[in-house]
């Protein structure tokens, strides 16, 4: 046991293998990608959240958009990166932890009122990823400025809107959540166990083709998971517990 006093060449302890695998993406300054939970990697052309990109998460309120947007931050946060949520009113802290966020590095600005764009702009560049829910439709000027600032400051911007028209600036990746169905609740029995939803992913990237993925948003342990059910034949059962793919 010895301590190096040299700040520049600080001796770092060897990490356990499984921790090192999770830590690498955000601890490397040169990395252009932020890690995602396995279940969400397939939604993105890079298999990860690109720094400086804008991702749109659209869907009707109550359909799982907040869960999906915050889930995009979970691995970044768990691996040591800072995240922020602006304009997400009354976020459920326990649900955020179940999604895998590390509360110590998540900044919530639930009610920025008129200053939502300023608050988001301030956080871009200061944290690794920002989720923002603009109140109503965002003005094109504000949207373009924030997207440009995100690209310049290399922070991933996730915009949460009720419908794709709520963000008047073309995102890099657009995720639309629909057909959400809760499982596990019958007429007076069971408990909410998971929500199966279809997420349509479209990227501006020319090589990527739009695809529909079926995801648990969330699954029975509160995290997000890919559904093993084939997209063509979604089976719906009120009694079977959703499988949680690790």
């Amino acid at each position: 046991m010895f301590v190096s006093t040299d700040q520049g060449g600080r001796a770092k302890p060897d990490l356990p293998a499984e921790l090192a695998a999770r830590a690498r993406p955000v601890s490397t300054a040169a990395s252009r990608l932020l890690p995602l939970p396995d279940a969400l990697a397939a939604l993105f052309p890079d298999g990860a959240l690109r720094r400086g990109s804008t991702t749109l998460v659209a869907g009707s309120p109550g359909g799982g958009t907040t869960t999906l947007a915050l889930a995009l931050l979970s691995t970044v946060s768990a691996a040591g990166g800072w995240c922020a949520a602006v304009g997400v009113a009354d976020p459920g802290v326990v649900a955020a932890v179940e999604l895998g966020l590390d509360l110590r590095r998540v900044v919530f600005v639930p009610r920025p009122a008129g200053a939502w764009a300023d608050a988001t702009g301030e956080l871009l560049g200061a944290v690794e990823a920002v989720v923002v829910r603009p109140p109503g439709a965002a003005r094109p000027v504000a949207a373009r400025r924030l997207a440009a600032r995100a690209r310049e400051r290399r922070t991933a911007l996730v915009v949460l809107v009720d419908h794709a028209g709520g963000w008047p600036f073309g995102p890099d990746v657009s995720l639309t959540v629909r057909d959400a169905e809760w499982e596990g609740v019958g007429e007076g029995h069971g408990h909410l166990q998971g929500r199966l939803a279809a997420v349509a992913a479209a990227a501006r990237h020319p090589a990527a083709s739009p695809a529909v993925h079926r995801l648990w948003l969330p699954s029975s342990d509160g995290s997000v998971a890919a559904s093993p059910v084939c997209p063509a034949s979604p089976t719906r059962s009120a009694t079977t517990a959703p499988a949680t793919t690790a």
Partner: protein
Amino acid sequence: MAVCCPLLQHEGERGEEARRFSLVLRAADELCPWVEPVALGSCTLPARGPSRFFGGEARLVDQLGAAVIGALDGAGPVQIGAADGLFAALLAARAGVIVPPGGSATFLSSWSLAVLRRPDLAVTLQRLGIHTLGQFAALPARHVLARFGGEAVLCHRVARAEVGELPGLRDPRIGHRLREVRGELPDVTPQAGFFGGTSAGDLRAAGAVARLQARLGPEAVLTGRLGEGRDPADRGRLVPWGSRPEGRHPGRAACRAPAPWPGRLPPPSPMVVLGDPLAAELVDRAGRPVRVGATGLLSDAPARLSIAGGPWRQVRGWAGPWPASERWWSGRRRRARLQVVDGGGEAVLLAAERGRWWLEGRYD
């Protein structure tokens, strides 16, 4: 010279006092450099140079008083005083006087022994008929050492104004606490960094948080904390960033697996937890309000739901009720929770209390 803000000396749960005090320090610092925090609510500054600059100590007191009152913004009175040495200066602030240089021993002589905050010594001395610092100071130093020991010698020298510092006057944590509220330290220093240190990312984020708090107000920038309880609102709370962590190991609570609580709903938890629950109406097929009976069962199957006077929505499925008799020993709260899925596929968490339904959370 010492400045004391009596109402800021004890920190409440929200950490407002430390934040206010850092504003007081900033205001004082603009008038005179070398302002030094002593403990929460009190600070010192060298009087000689600034008083010459402002044209006398009385002028400096006026200027300083106005600046500090402005920074306090109504948070109580401010006491300013000057004397040689920290101990005398703090008492001078309490009395609101300016003691001339060399006059500290005389000034101290009339104070009671209680101000030394050494109750054992004070009791012993009072039995000997010594009640004031002046009487104590008059005792010969060598007798004090022989009869009362080393600690008393230090107090004796303080009472004689030979020494200005008395152990216990300065709060060793004050610097750290102030850096915390100013956002110069991340909230949870011990565990924030990946290798146990503070990374560049931590500092960047803390700076942005401090700027946001300055712009939107401290209550607008929040952090999540996990707690104990059954309510979604008890188990996870949002508190202002930088507010005082409860318990001795704030970081540990955040990483600990939540303990099992009977009556707690299994995951997934609601993604939206309303700070102020909304009134809801739940009726059965005949339009009668659904109630939770004494046996913990619903009076009838719910058929329609309306939130905050909004349109009626069909109830497709529900689960519960889960009874949660909180503080059952005082009989104060009997609550039951119900998960409801409506016709649009949206799930909500309702709570029934005293015959009324409330929307507590949404599963968005």
